[in-house]
């Protein structure tokens, strides 16, 4: 309940300050450019292929958007001293983290909503299945949720927003690059690294319009673990 209160305030802060719109606008523009140049460009393709390409590029931009959206979540409260307000109020630390995360997720959903025009464009000139689009967006939302959670963790660790963004980006890149480790390690480690990678094994099915339980579970687990870690960081801060 209190988490929703925090989420509502945070979301309205995103909507009232310029930075939120700038993040959305810049990433939307880049996403559109990539869509135009790579997904639509080149040799003629089938609609499903164009859509798959769209989700491929969008997945990258979703991760980037998550880093920028999440960087302010806790780091800013710490920077401006408003964290004391939350700390001295009758809230659980998990409410604080959850509220912040949910606000970020809602804002990310807003960004994803803004990208819907691209699949619609594909629809105008071709044939796409609604299921494919829905599965792709579901995947984007899950990937975004995991990235935002890692970002929330980074934001809890860092002293200011810039450091938060860098910390989160480093963690996310490390998670994504796990598949490189998978290529050079022996079994069974290779399988472990491959399964751990944020993108490699888990996103392509969504891109093709498939939803596997194991992928859904993977993203939810990453989200949970990262938020749990963020909660622990907040708790530890009180001992400082």
């Amino acid at each position, binding site marked *: 309940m*209190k988490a929703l*209160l*925090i989420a509502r*305030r945070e979301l*309205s*802060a995103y909507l*009232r*300050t310029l930075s939120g719109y700038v993040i959305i606008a810049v990433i939307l523009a880049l996403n559109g450019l990539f869509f135009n140049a790579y997904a639509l460009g080149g040799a003629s393709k089938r609609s499903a292929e164009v859509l798959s390409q769209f989700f491929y590029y969008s997945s990258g931009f979703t991760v980037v958007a998550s880093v920028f959206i999440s960087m302010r979540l806790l780091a800013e409260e710490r920077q*401006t*001293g*408003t*964290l*004391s*307000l*939350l*700390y*001295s*109020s*009758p*809230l*659980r630390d998990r409410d604080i983290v959850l509220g912040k995360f949910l606000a970020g997720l809602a804002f990310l959903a807003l960004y994803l909503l803004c990208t819907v025009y691209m699949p619609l464009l594909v629809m105008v000139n071709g044939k796409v299945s609604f299921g494919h689009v829905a599965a792709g967006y579901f995947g984007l939302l899950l990937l975004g949720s995991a990235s935002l959670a890692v970002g929330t963790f980074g934001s809890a660790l860092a002293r200011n927003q810039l450091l938060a963004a860098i910390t989160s980006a480093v963690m996310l890149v490390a998670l994504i690059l796990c598949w490189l480790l998978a290529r050079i390690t022996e079994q069974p480690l290779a399988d472990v690294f491959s399964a751990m990678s944020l993108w490699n094994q888990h996103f392509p099915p969504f891109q093709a319009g498939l939803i596997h339980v194991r992928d859904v579970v993977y993203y939810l687990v990453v989200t949970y673990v990262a938020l749990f870690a963020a909660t622990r960081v907040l708790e530890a801060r*009180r*001992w*400082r």
Partner: protein
Amino acid sequence: MIQVEGLTKYYGEHAAIRDLAFTISQGEVIGFLGLNGAGKSTTLKVLGCVLLPTSGRVVIDGHDVVSNAHEVRQRIGYLPDVPPLYEEMTVGEYLAYVAQLRGVTSRDTASRVGEAEEKTGLRDVHGELISTLSHGYRQRVGVAQALVHKPALLILDEPTSGLDPRQIVEMRDVIRGLKGAHTVLVSSHILPEISQTCDRLLIIHKGMLVAQGTEEELAAKMGGRGTIELEVRGDKARAVEVLQRFGAVEVDRVSDGLVALTVRASPDQRPLVAQAVVGAGLELLRLDQGAGQLESIFLRLTHGQEARA
């Protein structure tokens, strides 16, 4: 209301506060006095459930701040040294948000916000963005957020810092107005403000409690009875002679037949001093109690500690 025993807080190797012990009863207005860096803010952060103590026990209204922090947080309102404000919200929205965070139902929120604004003189800026407010108003919003949910205990960390003299007087009135409804713990390094608003003082220096009591008790403990300042027209030697029977006399300055003096005597003796001066044929131009009474106690306490350290 508050029991503190053996409270210690380390930041790494450095002890910010050491072995503090004091009790505060319901309804008291307590001044928490100390130089910058003495450990005031740290103590208040522990009481405000923002920081956990390294050791010691703090019980607020029967609940321990470590094991039962959630219960404690429902009973306190805390203003940190920097008011925790969200710039992009209006005063009204912000206070409503804080009230609901602290468990005020949405039905009561509007009336509670109204009351808090009334008490802190924020009515006029209800709809203004916090980012546009002056420092004085921001500080008041900080106090308003601490009391919006009617907590039993109010913890105000330097509510007058950075205010101009007029705003300090206003803030003092605000704090005085809280007396009775809340137990108030207010910290400061500005002495007059504390002596005028508080029932009792706790003096902290280098992380340790060096004295506590009312202003009179502290004065008595330090052996000082206070001072009387006066200005007379007439002969300097005669004035000193007359005043000497009340206590040690210092001549502050002499100019154009005017003599300014300070007598070490209890301010209660002012009527007698006046009579004596007039009776001796001197013209009495000004008679006042020494302003620096508390200041001198405070300086002696903190200075003594320094000398011993």
